[in-house]
């Protein structure tokens, strides 16, 4: 499936300074794997050391949070847009 993957500003320096990429993938997980295979420096910002998507990394398929779909197994279809959207956390 030909989809568009949108990269947030903070990660663009690790993705060839691109704001979006056109990819072929059948699921969200495949799309993210394709992204991080091409741009390996992104991996540590998106995934924990044990391979889980970091808690402050939000993945949307056409504005639907994949946590409420099938997470990384969420299927995608031609023309879908996957967005990586930050949330921000911290504290003393």
């Amino acid at each position, binding site marked *: 499936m030909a989809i568009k993957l949108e990269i*947030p*500003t*903070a*990660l*663009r*320096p*690790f993705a060839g300074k691109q704001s979006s990429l056109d990819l072929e993938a059948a699921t969200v997980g495949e799309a993210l794997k394709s992204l991080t295979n091409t741009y390996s*420096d992104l991996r*540590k*910002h998106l995934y924990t050391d044990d391979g889980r998507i970091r*808690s*402050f990394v*939000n993945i949307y398929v056409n504005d639907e*949070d994949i946590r409420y779909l099938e997470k990384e197994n969420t299927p995608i279809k031609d023309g879908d847009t996957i967005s990586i*959207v*930050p*949330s*921000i*956390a*911290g*504290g*003393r």
Partner: protein
Amino acid sequence: MLLLNEALTNEIRAHGARDYPNETCGALLGLDGPAGDTGGSPRREVRALFPLTNRRDDSPRNRFSVTADDVRAAERAAAVGGLELVGWYHSHPDHPARPSEYDREHAWPWYSYVIVSVAAGEPRDMTSWLLADDRSQFHSEEIASLPGATARHSQ
């Protein structure tokens, strides 16, 4: 280097004092420039703030949280003003203006992270930090004061 005018500096400090003893938070909207003569770190200028509500209802005195919806709202506000979302500010109530391990674990690269210390309700030191590309540490980012007027986007 982060260029921040006095009015915006005072606004961050006032937001920190207003939300004390809870942590405050907000977005920095501005322009990201080339590294130039700053030794490789970006030279960015903050032109406006986007004050936010701390979403951590369970432990707001030592944690802050900005939702993805808030991030998108801040990005939209920046775009309306022809600016970029260049970073975030938050307060450390009764604690130094240094990033914690929790800050590092949850940080994004590229953004400037401004921290203001608020001691007994009074804003004190303000610092800025950039996450190392390998996520191992924060690097201190110099804050350069600028004269100038403030701009503020409502939430």
